């Protein structure tokens, strides 16, 4: 019985990669350039829209998996996703094309804005506007914290680890690396593979 169940699954798994990578390095670069130029307010939704819905380069399951890998690694979600998707489609060159594409528009804009801010940032109206922007940005980060907590925290202990991280950085000034390694190891050990779980899988 298990034979008949696994056979079609294996066949589709073997068939899928043949259908998908029809993207050239230039196409990858242009698509990520477009994402980099239009993704106001956070890259992830734009990535999904472009890679899953519009081009069909990856499916929804792959997208979620790649995103969770991107989140557990150092690096921004946007650039890690670019590396992962680029590699899947065209190997090293695909990764390079994707990350340059996604960074270029915002980088050029911040280069220009940075110069403008340095020369005119001390004017009363700019300072006032920027104060408002900074306050709003704090609200936006808090929103991201709430959103991520709902999605990826489970159980009391996850909240304890989160609180412990905040306290180590803000109150005890242990620094990000020591906190990351210390609390990270504790949390990973807490979520260690368990026998009982393996049985249910």
């Amino acid at each position: 019985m298990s034979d008949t169940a696994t056979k079609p699954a294996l066949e589709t798994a073997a068939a899928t990669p043949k259908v998908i990578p029809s993207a050239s390095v230039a196409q990858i670069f242009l698509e990520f350039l477009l994402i980099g130029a239009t993704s106001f307010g956070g890259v992830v939704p734009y990535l999904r829209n472009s890679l899953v819905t519009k081009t069909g380069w990856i499916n929804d399951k792959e997208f979620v998996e790649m995103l969770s890998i991107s989140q557990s690694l150092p690096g921004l979600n946007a650039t890690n996703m670019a590396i992962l998707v680029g590699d899947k489609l065209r190997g090293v060159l695909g990764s390079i094309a994707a990350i340059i594409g996604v960074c270029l528009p915002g980088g050029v804009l911040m280069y220009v804005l940075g110069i403008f801010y340095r020369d005119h940032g001390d004017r009363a109206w700019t300072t006032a506007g920027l104060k408002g922007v900074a306050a709003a940005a704090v609200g936006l980060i808090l929103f991201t914290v709430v959103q991520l907590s709902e999605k990826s925290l489970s159980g009391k202990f996850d909240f304890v680890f989160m609180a412990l991280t905040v306290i180590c950085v803000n109150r005890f000034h242990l620094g990000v690396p020591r906190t990351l390694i210390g609390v990270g190891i504790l949390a990973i050990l807490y979520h260690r593979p368990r026998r009982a779980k393996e049985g249910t899988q």
Partner: protein
Amino acid sequence: MNQIPALIRVFSYLSLLTVGGGMAAFPELKTLTVDVHKWLTFTQLIHLYSLGQMAPGPNMMMIVSIGQWAAGFVGALVVVFAFFGPTAVLAFIVNRWWQREEKWPWRDSIQRGLAPVSIGLLLAGCFSMAKGAITGTETAAMAVAVLLVLLRYKINPALVVMAGAVLGMLTLSPK
């Protein structure tokens, strides 16, 4: 004084701290760029970071401005490579290995263990930024309002941040 070696050192180090997002590295970013190297002031850092929230693309592109201030065009270029290079290579290698080790039981443990820590780092970054950004009742009220609006309505966050700019100009101008 040539700032290039320091820019490479600082930003490639910061690069490795951005687990779960750029904000995780904010406390160290502040210490190194403001207190140690004095490339900019804390207020300027907060302003640049906030401006960066309105720009498209990865939300830490404001590092380009810091590089430009410290060492011109070359500085900006160096900072981009130092900040995105190490994590890009790491993501590439770890991902390939990760795909092969799909059955490794610790894979799931690492992902689930790092989730609360990365959210904690994000929150820690938020608090350390709030120390400079929340200067009184008005700014505190604005931050809370933005949080509530985003929780309640499905709006593009960049628009809400822009609304913050307009509101700031209208209400926070020095009298």
